[in-house]
């Protein structure tokens, strides 16, 4: 279908990245590092880009995913290999539960109020887990030993060096398809209206709450899947301090903005620039990379206030290629 033309460029980017990672020595992890950033960008964009709501507490969904997988592998290790699918299911369930709670409460708020109320959710949840000593409290869940005992060291290693990465890649592919589908469907149009003028959208017959929740839910569950694979499976531990670290949300927002919100290509390009820049700077200028990175970021913001893809889109407005850019 013509709508899916806009998947060509992002998929090409993914495939090229993966090819580089597989063929060049030492670039697999960096590529996965970039993919992680692309992933959280695409995931957050499904909500932030499409609805215009900023969710500062977004990392909580990654955390829920991480805990979902952590709980499955940590407390249901006896299920053997089945603990992994269970982990993804739990990740989904935890994220959905949080989504319902936050959606019910915070989504009534508008703009910056929503954005910052979600910080409250994120921090509140973290301190609840630590303070009430849920799931190991601040000691978290440590899995390596269990995995190695259950699956043997080979397979345990395979889990965190292959399965986790493969899962992340699959999630990103699926998330991209979902994004394009959403943008081009009724949902996308409804959200476009919501983003621009929520009250006018209502009068137009749009069930604003419903569509916001759809986007919120989609974005949250993708985030949870990323948390489950890129964090728990790959790192083999879950520490609350780490998984609720708000810096990740800020990074995701930066990526979405850097590339251009509300487009699919935006967060992909944003994640690519962000991840690649940071990686290479930390290799070339260890210790000084952020000192160089920050001004670069500022230059990009000032030059492309609507994001790199937003800018390109505007330039190409009347050209045929625009169809390939969403």
């Amino acid at each position, binding site marked *: 279908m013509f709508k899916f033309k806009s998947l060509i460029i992002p998929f090409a980017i993914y495939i090229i990245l993966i090819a580089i990672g597989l063929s060049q*020595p030492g670039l697999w*992890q*960096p590529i996965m590092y970039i993919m*992680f950033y692309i992933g959280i960008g695409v995931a957050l964009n499904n909500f932030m880009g499409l609805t215009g709501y900023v969710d500062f507490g977004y990392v909580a969904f990654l955390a829920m995913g991480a805990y979902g997988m952590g709980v499955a592998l940590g407390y249901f290790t006896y299920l053997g290999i089945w603990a992994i699918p269970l982990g993804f299911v739990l990740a989904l369930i935890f994220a959905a539960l949080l989504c319902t709670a936050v959606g019910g409460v915070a989504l009534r708020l508008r703009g910056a109020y929503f954005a910052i109320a979600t910080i409250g959710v994120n921090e509140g949840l973290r301190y609840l887990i630590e*303070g009430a000593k849920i799931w190991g409290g601040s000691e978290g869940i440590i899995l390596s030993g269990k995995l190695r005992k259950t699956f043997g060291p080979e397979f345990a290693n395979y889990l965190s060096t292959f399965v986790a990465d493969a899962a992340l890649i699959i999630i990103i592919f699926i998330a991209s398809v979902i994004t394009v589908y959403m943008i081009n469907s009724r949902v996308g149009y409804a959200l476009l209206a919501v983003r621009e003028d929520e009250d006018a959208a209502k009068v137009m017959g749009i069930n604003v709450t419903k569509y916001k929740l759809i986007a919120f839910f989609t974005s949250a569950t993708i985030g949870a899947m990323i948390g489950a694979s890129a964090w728990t499976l*790959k790192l083999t531990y879950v520490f609350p301090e780490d998984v609720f670290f708000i810096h990740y949300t800020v990074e995701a927002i930066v990526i979405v903005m850097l590339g251009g919100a509300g487009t699919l290509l935006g967060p992909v390009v944003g994640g690519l620039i962000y991840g690649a820049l940071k990686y290479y700077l930390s290799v070339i*200028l260890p*210790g000084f990379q952020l000192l160089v990175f920050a001004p670069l970021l500022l230059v990009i913001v000032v030059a492309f206030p609507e994001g790199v893809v937003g800018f390109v889109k505007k330039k190409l407005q009347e050209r045929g290629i625009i169809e390939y850019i969403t």
Partner: protein
Amino acid sequence: AQQPEEKPTTTTPAATPTGPKEETLYFGAPISLSGKFAKEGQMSLWGMQVAAQWINENGGIKVGNKVYKVEIKYYDDESKKESVQSLIERLATVDKVKFILAPYSSGLTMAAAPIAEKYGVLMNSHGGASDYIFEQGYYYVVQTLSPASKYQTGFLDMVKTLDPDAKRLALVYEDKEFSRAVHQAAKEYAEKLGFEIVYEKTYPAGTTDLSPILNELKAANPDVLIGGGHFADGQLLAQQLAELNINIKAISILVAPSLPAFYEALGTKAEGISAPAQWETGVKYSPEVAEKLGVEWYGPTQEEFIKMFKDLAGEDAEPSYHVAEAAAAVLSYAKAIEKAQSTDVDRVREAMNDLEFMCVYGMWSIDPETGKQVGHDMVIIQWQNEEKKIVWPESAANAKPCYPMPTWDEKAEGKTCGS
């Protein structure tokens, strides 16, 4: 970017006219030069560089007819797990490094372990103290610093020796995985020693006011307090104990007091406060002591070590224990490689199993099975008369413990542990 060219990788032959073949051997290190572990990261890097420099100036590592010069290949991991993984891989594949100095902190070490294992490189932890790292079954991860479970036990021994009547122990520490591990182990140990736990509370990371806990603590009226977690909260704990005028006979705080900044920040309030340290300037490890114990000495003497450190870090810099533990990790690699007479990872790891030596940092030997450090002893330092003194164990001490420490009021009037 100012450095267009990346440095040459792998073992490039150095230009030497004659003699044995000289090659450069890279030890790789993802290091936290930014982010929350920037301070420890910087210190560790200096330690590694000092050790590498010493090795190179003292004949390198001799394997067969080859001589290896050591260089540290490091990247900044920003104290973030995602970066650590990329950098480990880069070190293992692009830079073809076989010997990794693990990143700072237990969490980051854990993040690095699966990747290191995948590429079959050895990882030596100089900043990941938590015991659990070595309970996961990683064979290629070895430890140079003493594990978390040992941090506060020496202090308890010391108090018990000094004052068998000081029974009322309180614990106030940061709710984080590391300080929890330290204090849970300490608590068990204390109970064995016959202490009575009169108060135990944690505070969340990032706290800027401990008064709710300390008001309670005051009421519990303890003789001895152990606690803390990291730099900032450790300083805060001491500061607020003073503000609230809570007098305790002996206090040991994790991490913070071991840095000069502690005294600079608190002034005389720091007097008498103790801390566990992996190492301290003035600790009595020397070639002579090694000889007496019948173990081999390796690496710079303390004077050499401190001089080299100051040449690198600046005249005003004081080496913290992070410097020594990182240096020791480098030395342990060198020693193990020489012992194995090979740079093969498996052979070196095997050589480590019964490797035992002493360096400026103290003893080094590991549990062959888990890789956990068993040889090294922690010391207890105490601020006395503006100086950090080693007060425990007696064999390493260069001063007597100041016990009970002066009260806050006395300290405010200028009384120090020396006067």
